[in-house]
């Protein structure tokens, strides 16, 4: 009964909420009304956008010593999560058989395990930094904590189900993924899709005004 629900209707429902929600959010942002920029262009907004998209991957020199641990943990978590989400053998097979109809070469098992460990370590350190640093703690919202905990639970249940020997553990992982997908469009997780457009928008604005930032 529960197995049928999690593998069937709940999976399609969560997928629909995720797709429609993400699309809706992106469309809303893209078509949001903005004042027309009447200023004289001093430089290219396109080059400004491109520059900002890439330059923001590295922090300013002045900031590096202060945010060293977030920088390392941030990259560990995001690269680790990306690798295990799209290159873990069980995920590649799942995507091929259930969604896309085609697959790609997965990571070897040892690399997948290292990616998962990097992601776990990064997430734990990032969440601790959020909780322990007074400024980070103050500017953190309930949503930030839910996102961190939910992502951790998804990863943890995935780790529990690694052996692929128990239906219960597989269902637990899938159920947590479904909750994550449903929550995704309404949360800070949307930065997955918005961080590049957001950087590009700011960069284009700066570029047009000739601001070197």
């Amino acid at each position, binding site marked *: 009964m529960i197995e049928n629900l999690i593998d069937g209707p709940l999976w399609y429902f969560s997928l629909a909420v995720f797709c429609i929600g993400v699309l809706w959010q992106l469309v809303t942002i893209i078509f949001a009304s903005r004042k027309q920029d009447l200023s004289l262009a001093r430089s290219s907004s396109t080059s400004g956008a491109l520059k900002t998209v890439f330059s923001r991957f590295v922090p300013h020199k002045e900031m590096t010593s202060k945010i060293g*641990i977030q920088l390392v943990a941030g990259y560990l978590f995001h690269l680790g999560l990306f690798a295990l989400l799209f290159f873990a053998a069980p995920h590649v097979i799942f995507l091929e058989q259930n969604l896309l109809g085609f697959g790609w070469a997965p990571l070897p098992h040892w690399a997948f*395990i290292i990616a*998962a*460990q990097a992601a*776990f*370590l990064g997430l*734990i*350190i990032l969440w*601790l*930094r959020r909780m*322990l*640093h*007074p*400024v980070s*703690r*103050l500017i953190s919202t309930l949503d930030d904590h839910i996102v961190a905990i939910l992502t951790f639970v998804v990863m*943890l249940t995935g*780790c*529990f*189900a*690694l*052996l692929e*020997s*128990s239906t*219960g*553990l597989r269902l637990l992982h899938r159920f947590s993924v479904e909750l994550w997908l449903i929550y995704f469009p309404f949360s800070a997780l949307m930065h997955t899709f918005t961080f590049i457009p957001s950087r590009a928008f700011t960069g284009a604005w700066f570029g047009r005004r000739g601001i070197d930032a």
Partner: protein
Amino acid sequence: MNIQTLLLLVGLLLPQLSLADGPPKQNNFPDGVSSQSLGADLWREVRQRDLQSSGVSQVKGVDSGILINAHGDQWARFRTSKLTTYGSIALAAMFGLVFLFYVIRGKIGIEGGFSGNMVQRFTDYQRIAHWTLAIVFLFLAITGLILLLGRPLLIPLFGKGVFSILASASKEGHNLFGPLFLVSLLMMLFSYVSRNIYEKGDLTWLLRLGGSIGDGHVSTGYFNMGEKIWYWIVILIGLVVALSGLILVSPNFGQGRVIMELSHITHTIGALALIVFSVAHIYLGWIGSEGAMEGMKTGYVDASWADAHHDRWGKECRDQGLVISAEEYARLQGKNPAVEVATEQGK
């Protein structure tokens, strides 16, 4: 090992044994009955009762020439009887001791109460290192105890079905989080090592058990000798546990069964020691000593707490002007100083 391999080995061993040892041995029993045990020598050899010896096998791999690993039985018996029994007793005894200590001593407060003035004890990085290690350690301790004690303790409670799921999840979680323990241990090593070197006065603290023997308080610096011992226990036993765990989790590097068994025993005894000691550490840091947890939560401790527990360090801080007011502390924590100070005074 399948039956064909077993038969093949028996076939290969039989003629060798008969050639090496001559005719089969005659067993004479006290009642005059004699029997010619054709297979006794063979099975003694197979069972490796006299000495571990290796045969010949087409299978290439570590220990592939050993038909039966005699040490395996000893290891399994040691694990199921002694490790689980003594491990449970040690854990229960520590919980009992801590409870007894709480009943007798209660919460150790600060004479004269808190001053409200604060001094920074730990940096952000030190606290992150500590809590990362704590989270990873607790996860490994829980999953490890499920694997060690689950059979006798959890199967009667939840049944075999639930336990098999729990054990499978614990094994995967434990293996995946294990290497993170080593990383967080190294973070801990580098962030605290300079404060945990032996210094003058530490031996006095140890001989007088932190003031429990003799008159009054024993003067200490940033960390007392008890804290330093705990730190080095965590680092050294932690390294042994982490490295033996890596041997266990990577069986494809050529280590044989005996090394794996020894690693398992070392890993379990070391981990049990860490778990047992950590019960006392958690009690003292969280419940037993008033104001101690504040240091690991915010990075700051009350100046009176510093004077009471680490007087030499407290004096150093005052001499260097590192003590900040309650208002300044509230501001640093992003709180309204007026409200916070009024609340503190109202308590």
